[in-house]
């Protein structure tokens, strides 16, 4: 075995570029571990944890690149090092084609009429750059995470004073005049405005609106902390005011996990003064409070999308359980569940989208009871070991414990692939439930990653005399770079039950695992 840690001074690369390089090198033959990271305090701690922090890398700074490799032998080590260099230089070769500005100020000389700054620098530098942009009178889309909440509050207060829009920190996606920012899907332009504290929540709602034949006027991301007590929903409130005046927006959808009562009251008060119809989905939150304020309450992301579409078309919103006829659903459920063995009883949800995981917990609770998770609805259902499922389990694989030092599961499928097979080995697993997210920023071909692991998992079950049911939903549109239809086809060919939304996928998973026992609870 060979271990080597190399420091390249003054060689800065952005986090996505480094993720891609780390991934490619890790896939090489004979490479056991590969980390190509900037020497930030967080990354140095990670290297220390895996005993790869050398004296040289200890003194390296955030401008220095650390290449830490663990390989089977010296030959693999040499190959890995030259591949890292090749990938780093390939990047450089593209960059030298044009001279890029080094600072926001010099970029403003090139583009004096810019109206938005996108910031995705490491969290410790994010406030500094965002503040500079705001002082120059620019709206901000702040993708960076790990920004302290005090800094978020300061940035949001100054933006509000200056009449600017501050999306984020930790804002994954937005759509401004049909342009997708960050991680997002290609959807129709249309009359519906969305303001969301959740990136995947925004993606699910906007793609379902697109599939209904309608479209998005503007979609504003607030960042996950916006509706916390400390921030008080500043961006959501400013967003409502902005969309209230936006002529292209006829109706508005608000999406968040349930905020604290005070913040909820504040946001709904502003919403109630807006003359446009407002659909609110505070996932799993109180519905009466929303209705009392004159807004329309939605129970799931799909419900929010369907309700707002009905409203702008002058139709009466209808509750959606499945968009496929009940008879067809029950025939799929019977076909799948009849192949399960007696011991196979549980749903195992493995999610890349945090809000889709949360929604699954909310959908499953009234059907099959509380579900174990790394992000449970009730503290006593927190998994002792996030790597081992227990009874019904849903895991948010994009949460911090899975992503420290690793790319997000929408880009890197390694852990999810492993976990799918692991669940198949458990004789109590009946259904593996998955989400797949397409669009800009996401993996170029999720099916190519997941389908072979699904096939392996089904084989493992079969070898042990069992059948494994796999259910998935895909967030995306046919216009996305990955093409929703192509992806759906590949999953279906692999024997996966592909449902039109994450809520529907969750419901059919519950039906299959319980052999249809929750039919009455669902359909009444």
């Amino acid at each position, binding site marked *: 075995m060979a271990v080597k840690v190399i420091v390249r001074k003054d060689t*800065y690369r*952005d*986090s*996505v*570029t480094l993720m891609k390089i780390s991934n490619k090198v890790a896939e090489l033959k004979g490479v056991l571990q590969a980390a190509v990271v*900037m020497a*930030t305090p967080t990354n140095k701690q990670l290297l220390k944890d895996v005993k790869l922090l050398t004296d040289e890398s200890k003194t390296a*700074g*955030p*401008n220095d690149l650390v290449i830490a490799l663990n390989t089977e032998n010296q030959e693999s080590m040499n190959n890995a090092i030259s591949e890292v260099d090749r990938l780093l230089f390939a990047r450089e070769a593209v*960059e030298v084609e044009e001279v*890029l*500005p*080094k*600072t*926001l100020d*010099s*970029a*403003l000389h*090139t*583009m004096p*009429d*810019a*109206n*938005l*700054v*996108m*910031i*995705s*620098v*490491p969290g*410790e*530098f994010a406030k*500094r*750059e965002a503040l500079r*942009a705001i002082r120059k*009178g*620019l*709206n901000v889309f702040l*993708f*960076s995470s790990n920004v302290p909440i005090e800094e978020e509050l300061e940035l949001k207060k100054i933006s509000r004073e*200056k*009449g*600017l*829009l501050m999306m984020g920190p930790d804002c994954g996606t937005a759509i*401004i*005049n049909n*342009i*997708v*920012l*960050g991680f997002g899907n290609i959807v129709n332009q249309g009359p519906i405005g969305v303001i969301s504290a959740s990136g995947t929540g925004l993606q699910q709602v906007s793609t379902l609106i697109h599939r209904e034949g309608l479209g998005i006027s*503007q979609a504003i991301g607030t960042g996950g902390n916006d509706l916390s007590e400390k921030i008080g929903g500043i961006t959501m409130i*400013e967003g409502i005011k*902005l969309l209230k*005046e*936006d002529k*292209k927006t006829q109706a508005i959808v608000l999406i968040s996990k349930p905020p604290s009562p005070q913040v909820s009251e504040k946001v709904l008060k502003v919403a109630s003064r807006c003359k446009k119809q407002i659909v609110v989905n505070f996932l799993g939150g109180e519905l009466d409070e929303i209705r009392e304020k004159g807004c329309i309450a939605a129970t799931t992301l799909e419900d929010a999308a369907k309700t707002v579409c009905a409203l702008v078309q002058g139709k009466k919103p209808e509750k959606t359980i499945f968009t496929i006829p009940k008879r067809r659903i029950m025939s799929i459920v019977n076909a799948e569940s009849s192949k399960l063995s007696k011991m196979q009883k549980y749903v195992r949800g493995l999610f890349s989208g945090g809000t889709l995981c949360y929604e699954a917990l909310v959908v499953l609770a009234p059907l099959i009871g509380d579900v174990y998770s790394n992000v449970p609805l009730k503290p006593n259902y927190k998994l002792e070991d996030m790597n081992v499922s227990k009874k019904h389990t849903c895991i948010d694989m994009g949460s911090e414990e899975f992503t420290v030092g690793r790319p997000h599961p929408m880009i890197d499928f390694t852990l999810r692939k492993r976990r799918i097979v692991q669940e198949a080995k458990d004789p109590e697993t009946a259904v593996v439930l998955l989400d797949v997210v397409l669009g*800009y*920023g996401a993996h170029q071909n999720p099916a190519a990653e997941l389908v072979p692991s699904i096939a392996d998992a089904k084989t493992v079950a079969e070898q042990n005399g069992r059948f494994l049911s796999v259910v998935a939903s895909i967030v995306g549109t046919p216009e996305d770079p990955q093409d929703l239809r192509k992806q759906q086809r590949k999953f279906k060919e692999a024997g996966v039950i592909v449902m039109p939304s994450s809520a529907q996928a969750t419901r059919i998973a519950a039906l299959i695992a319980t052999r249809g026992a929750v039919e009455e609870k669902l359909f009444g």
Partner: protein
Amino acid sequence: MSKRENLLNKKLKVINLGIQTFAEDLKKQGVEVVHVDWRPPAGGDVEILKLLDKLEEGADSPSRNYLKKPTSKQ
């Protein structure tokens, strides 16, 4: 018209700091974008950066401008 309305009512023009693929994705959508070749400032030393920012803030303050005046006349 406040500046946030500029975002919705004018053509989107973006300055991108950080992840380069975000700028590439915007270009694919026909958006004018300037990508900044961002590096951690002050060698990434957050403490030195705080001091530099304080100095810079001082340069914008009225007292600093007052101090500057005599030199500008020279």
